[in-house]
């Protein structure tokens, strides 16, 4: 049913989405922790910054990414020295997806972290755990529902990411043409509707798969629920 081209697009979308989500997860967790647990003068500003990719139109985010991570951008130069380039590369598509998914992921994790009973971490401290160990063995596992939700949301958002990606890394077959970009191309063509519907169906199937997996995972770690 799927042509080899379709398969290539699906494989690329999955690669971009998974890399984006897995790399963003620790960053999102750290940000969620800072926002949930600390109070400092610039906190609200940081919170606003995290929400930025949600508030600004994706095209503007792509444009900002181009300014920052293009070959001539400050971060772009820095990463180029490390041998990583983003422009016109799948890595750039992953970066765009990661940035756009970040606010959703931070919120989900933060919501779970804020619901963790601090008295449990206190108990862990009296049993000999330092603050970091107490966090890692108590708060972290108790916030797993949020981490799981963040993963699902992030993956879904990555699978749908279009505006920032095409603006930042353009639409290069095999490199940055993920499902949404392929759909967009089809949508631009008079009479491309059937193609749009087919590719959209693939997107939906992928996300359904991700959902089923996440629900299965949630059930397996069901005991984690504090209730």
């Amino acid at each position, binding site marked *: 049913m799927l042509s080899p081209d379709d398969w290539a697009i699906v494989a690329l979308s999955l690669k971009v989405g998974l890399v984006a989500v897995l790399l963003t997860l620790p960053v999102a967790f750290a940000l969620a922790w800072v926002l949930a647990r600390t109070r400092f003068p610039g906190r609200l500003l940081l919170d606003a910054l995290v929400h930025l990719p949600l508030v600004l139109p994706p095209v503007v985010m792509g444009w900002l990414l*181009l300014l920052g991570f293009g070959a001539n951008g400050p971060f772009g130069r820095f990463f180029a020295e490390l041998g990583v380039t983003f422009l016109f590369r799948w890595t750039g598509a992953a970066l765009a997806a990661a940035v756009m998914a970040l606010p959703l992921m931070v919120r989900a994790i933060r919501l779970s972290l804020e619901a963790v009973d601090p008295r449990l971490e206190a108990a862990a401290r009296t049993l000999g755990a330092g603050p970091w160990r107490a966090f890692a063995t108590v708060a972290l596992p108790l916030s797993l529902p949020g981490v799981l939700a963040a993963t699902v949301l992030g993956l879904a958002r990555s699978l749908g990411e279009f505006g920032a990606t*095409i603006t930042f890394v353009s639409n*290069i077959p095999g490199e940055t043409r993920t499902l949404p970009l392929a759909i967009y191309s089809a*949508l*631009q063509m008079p009479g491309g509707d059937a193609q749009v519907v087919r590719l959209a169906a693939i997107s939906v199937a992928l996300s359904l798969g991700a959902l089923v997996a996440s629900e299965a995972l949630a059930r397996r770690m069901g005991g984690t629920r504090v209730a």
Partner: protein
Amino acid sequence: RAPVVLAAASLQEALTAAAGQWAAKGHGRPVLSFAASSALARQVEAGAPADLFISADEAWMDHVAAAGFVAPGSRAPVLLNALVLIAPASSRLALAIRPGFPLARALGAGRLAMGDPDAVPAGIYGKQALTRLGVWPQVEGKLARAENVRAALALVARGEAPLGVVYATDARAEPRVRVVGVFPPASHAPIVYPIARLKQASSADAEPFRRFLLSGEGKALFRRFGFGTR
């Protein structure tokens, strides 16, 4: 009621000026909505209450016409454009556009920024021209396919792409790029922006405004923004 005009995004500046001039004559200021031609065409076909449609290419106008939304006899070419090869203003590159010209070598490791040749009108014209000139096979794998001409322009202006293919009007308005050469008009289908009055048009001003755009006064105004007229 003032007419509602759906127009390709690349016409924003020129058409806004035209609407201003029209309003200055004591008419109600037309309502202008700029977006991708594809989106506008779909809106027309969904029965949107619009009066005029100006597409960035003939293909979407054909589509709308075939679906029966165009008022008979109202379709006309309103604007013309040309296709140019651009480079960042700082670039020293000299390249003459002729059959088999060494475009791939000029790109080096860089990419050629242009509208998506599968979807964006400017990209479709660009592909035609490069194919006719026999250089398409060299560069096909070295494209940066942008969502629209403006995005392609930005890539060159930022120096992220060493060369790009855009409309003459876009190149003219961006000081950070330089026109390397103009594609011969014969190398691609004529770049025409067709206008049409829609079947569902309900504004009494729709037809007068359409005629104004096609009048000598309208054409003179468009030429000021670098467009060609017929």
